[in-house]
């Protein structure tokens, strides 16, 4: 039987500035019938180019320089225009990362989906019926209602379901999913991934699954290929490849991820030094040589072939030694000495924020109280829309809170707005933003960005400023040559280092880290997390660490606050919150996270989206989605926020002892 997709010795180049730059080099793999094949790698390694080439959708500058792609037995590279249209219309479907952009904003969902059936020759009424049917199959419970809507009226998860429904509508032989859940909340991601697993079973579709997220690929795919610098460096059955990687790059990539239970005070993440070769760079030997601790002269000289290891392949001369790859970052750490007994740096008491527009009132932060000690990290988790960023902006004084709440910095009341704060108070609270492209002024040089912060916050000038500037960039592991460049000339990781240096310019007491690594590749993320841990150990600075990535939060945090609709649902030490017993919402968040390790024992799923904060549910705000709802009491009475055991508080009607019992066994 023919493969759904066979890529043979494919090379693709982009023509930039009059020169061909190779982005794919001699890539071969095949996706069998009904198989799910995963393609992983960091940004810039050529994942999406594979997908685009498969459907001959390369941008104008891109061109296949060698090799072929056959889909369902047909040579895609040899098709003429009409045949290509036919292929795209019948054989292959793609689902992209951003469903909001994949759907037409001016057409009702029903019309968009029905169009596909009408193109295939169905009448209008038939098409409508079949559209409703396919939407039902992607588990949209009320397809008629959804069909009446426009894309912007649907949540991200719902949009992606519609996109998947449209992709499946023509029953394609191959479904290409390009980062289908990146940018979705973990709970929604879990739902969409579950859906894809179920649909695969029902439709028997072959899948090419592209993702930077190793855990997602591990969960979804039968076989996995690892791309590096446009080359396939390793391929094999998923479990084997992740449990016993045979290429140093795969080994290193896996080590960058914080494993369950790994924490900043007893283990450092490994990193991958250097960067990916630029697209089109001349590569003579192995592309990973410069960043590989196992590399020797032979690696520099000759490109290793894809060595057959019996059902799996690795492009490494020393594949048998891959697992013994020396760490690039020593594992030992200086233990940060948190002083839990000392007076807290920041105390927050009943902080509220209501946004009003006309008659609408949206309670974004509701009665939040907590305290953070010196050198301590508070992890703030929750789905998007739970009020994490609003809370951070309130603390920084960028937004005015509602009357009544009290925030104390070093036991002294902190004026709510920035303008009213003293210089020392402003210096004490700083932030590292999520997106360095927005956070760093693109018109300014790195020297100006950090220098200005030092002169304004550190009160420095002249030689003192210069000395301090050099110290500071050194402590964030930047070098002097980075000072003259503009942010756009730096990679994502380096930009974030600049942002961190700026936040530390005034010797802050507490730094809010708002998803500081979510835009970064895992190897860069590991380096940034190590840096944050180092800075904390050196300077006893406290962090409020906001992230949707629970693994990252767990690695860095001493304490965790779980937010839902602006309310703290659970607050406690990192171990308590993660190991349980936990609030049902925390439990759901945790079980939504795809893991590299074998299947987690209990899996509960949240259904639906987070309700609107302008119209929160009565009683316990979580009751509409709670998998462990007791009954009427949850709908009628808001549970109190109770310290159930020392340093561990929950907002739930279910007693702690009961939660222990419930969470011991699967739902």
């Amino acid at each position, binding site marked *: 039987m023919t493969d759904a997709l066979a890529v043979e010795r494919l090379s693709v180049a982009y023509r930039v500035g009059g020169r061909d730059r190779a982005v794919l080099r001699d890539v071969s793999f095949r996706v069998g019938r009904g198989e799910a094949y995963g393609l992983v790698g960091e940004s810039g390694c050529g994942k999406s180019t594979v997908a685009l080439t498969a459907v001959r959708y390369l941008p104008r500058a891109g061109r296949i320089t060698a090799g072929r792609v056959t889909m369902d037995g047909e040579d895609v590279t040899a098709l003429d225009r009409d045949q290509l249209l036919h292929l795209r219309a019948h054989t292959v479907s793609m689902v992209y990362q951003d469903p909001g952009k994949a759907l037409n904003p001016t057409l009702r969902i029903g019309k968009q989906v029905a169009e596909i059936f009408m193109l295939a020759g169905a009448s209008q009424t038939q098409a409508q019926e079949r559209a409703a049917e396919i939407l039902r199959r992607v588990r949209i419970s009320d397809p008629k209602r959804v069909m009446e809507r426009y894309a912007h009226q649907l949540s991200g998860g719902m949009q992606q379901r519609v996109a998947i429904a449209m992709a499946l509508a023509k029953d394609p032989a191959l479904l290409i999913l390009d980062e289908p859940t990146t940018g979705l909340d973990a709970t929604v991601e879990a739902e969409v991934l579950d859906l894809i697993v179920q649909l695969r079973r029902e439709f028997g579709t072959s899948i090419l699954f592209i993702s930077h997220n190793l855990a997602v690929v591990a969960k979804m795919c039968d076989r996995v290929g690892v791309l590096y610098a446009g080359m396939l460096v390793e391929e094999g059955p998923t479990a084997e490849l992740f449990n016993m990687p045979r290429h140093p790059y795969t080994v290193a990539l896996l080590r960058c991820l914080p494993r369950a239970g790994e924490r900043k005070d007893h283990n450092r993440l490994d990193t991958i030094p*250097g960067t990916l070769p630029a697209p089109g760079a001349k590569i003579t030997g192995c592309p990973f040589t410069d960043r590989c601790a196992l590399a020797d002269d032979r690696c520099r000289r000759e490109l290793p072939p894809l060595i057959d290891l019996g059902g799996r392949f690795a492009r490494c001369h020393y594949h048998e030694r891959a697992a013994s790859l020396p760490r690039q970052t020593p594992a030992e750490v200086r233990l940060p000495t948190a002083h839990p007994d000392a007076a807290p740096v920041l105390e927050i008491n009943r902080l509220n924020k209501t946004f009003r527009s006309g008659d609408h009132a949206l309670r974004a932060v509701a009665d939040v109280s907590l305290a953070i000690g010196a050198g301590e990290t508070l992890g703030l988790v929750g789905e998007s829309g739970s009020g994490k960023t609003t809370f951070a902006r309130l603390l920084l004084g960028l937004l005015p809170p509602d009357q009544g709440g009290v925030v104390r910095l070093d036991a002294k009341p902190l004026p709510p707005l*920035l303008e009213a704060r003293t210089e020392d108070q402003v210096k004490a609270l700083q932030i590292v933003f999520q*997106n360095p492209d927005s956070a760093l002024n693109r018109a300014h040089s790195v020297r100006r960005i950090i220098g200005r912060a030092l002169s304004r916050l550190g009160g420095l000038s002249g030689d003192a400023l210069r000395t301090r500037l050099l110290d500071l960039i050194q402590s964030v592991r930047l070098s002097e040559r980075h000072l003259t*460049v503009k942010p756009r000339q730096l990679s994502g990781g380096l930009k974030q280092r600049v942002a961190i240096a700026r936040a530390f310019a*005034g010797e802050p007491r507490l730094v809010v880290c708002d998803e500081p690594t979510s835009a970064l590749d895992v190897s860069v993320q590991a380096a940034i997390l190590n840096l944050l841990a180092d800075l904390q150990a050196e300077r006893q600075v406290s962090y409020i660490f906001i992230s949707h990535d629970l693994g990252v939060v767990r690695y860095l945090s001493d304490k965790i606050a779980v937010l839902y609709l602006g309310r703290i649902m659970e607050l406690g030490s990192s171990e308590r919150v993660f190991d349980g017993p936990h609030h049902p919402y925390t439990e759901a968040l945790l079980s939504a996270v795809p893991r590299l390790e074998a299947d987690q024992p209990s899996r509960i799923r949240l259904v639906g989206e987070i309700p609107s904060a302008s119209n929160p549910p009565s009683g316990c705000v979580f009751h509409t989605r709670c998998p462990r709802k007791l009954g009427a009491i949850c709908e009628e009475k808001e549970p109190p926020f109770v310290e159930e055991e020392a340093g561990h508080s929950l907002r739930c009607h279910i007693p702690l002892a009961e939660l222990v019992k419930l969470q011991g066994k699967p739902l």
Partner: protein
Amino acid sequence: MSAIDTSTETDRSPLRELIAALGRSRTFLAGAAILLFWILCALFGRYFVPYDPLADDIINSLLPPSAEHWFGTDQLGRDVFSRVIVGSRDILTVAPLATVLATVLGTTLGLITGYFRGLVDDIISRIIEAFMAIPVVIVALLAIVALGPSTLTVITVIGLAFSPIIARTVRSAVLAERELDYVAAAKLRRENALYIMFGEILPNVLPPILVEATVRLGYAIFAVATLSFMGFGIQPPSPDWGLSVSTNYGMIGGGFWWTVLFDSLAIATLVVGVNLIADGVAGALDD
């Protein structure tokens, strides 16, 4: 020590990239060639024109174009070719100065309204809109009647009249910029509003300002020519194009088309040239 990812210091600065893109844009190059031609005429025209553009020669008045007088002569026997070449001088001084005034004023207003929003924005924006509702020529005429015709008045009037349009463009660009986190970061180091507007935001909104200013320059040339035509702009005996069209257009009926045509064409080419430049700049910035 953790690893350092090296930067990708391969790409060029935005300015150099813009210049390279402009070099590839045929639209821009065509416009630039036309403008450069007129600038050279304004600067050096008087040294190489065959006749003194101001010298009367009544005996040879109203001659049609010939080998001696390429563009013919006017009512007073002055050489039209020489007048057209040298006539670029006044308009190429007045229009750019008016545009610079409009840009500086408009940018300041745009930064203030876009950055502060709220009441400040409401008040200034309503005034700007009211101002824009009155046709430029009417405002100009009123001002010139009140202040008396002079080059300075023309510059001031056109500069003021065009500033609201630039202010609106700048304001909308600033509205997007002020939401970016670098503005919040600046507030978190206690920068004042003046620094945030001019030191942080302004460098990032320069591209749209550049495009708008070039477009305005085209309109300013047209406005200056119009005012001169109506007798409120550049004053005789300057060989200014608008002025020449104004003094001679009564002659068309008599068949003396050359007294008007070449000055009109000069105005047209200059406006078209500047607009080509504006298109080229806008295109290069979009790439």
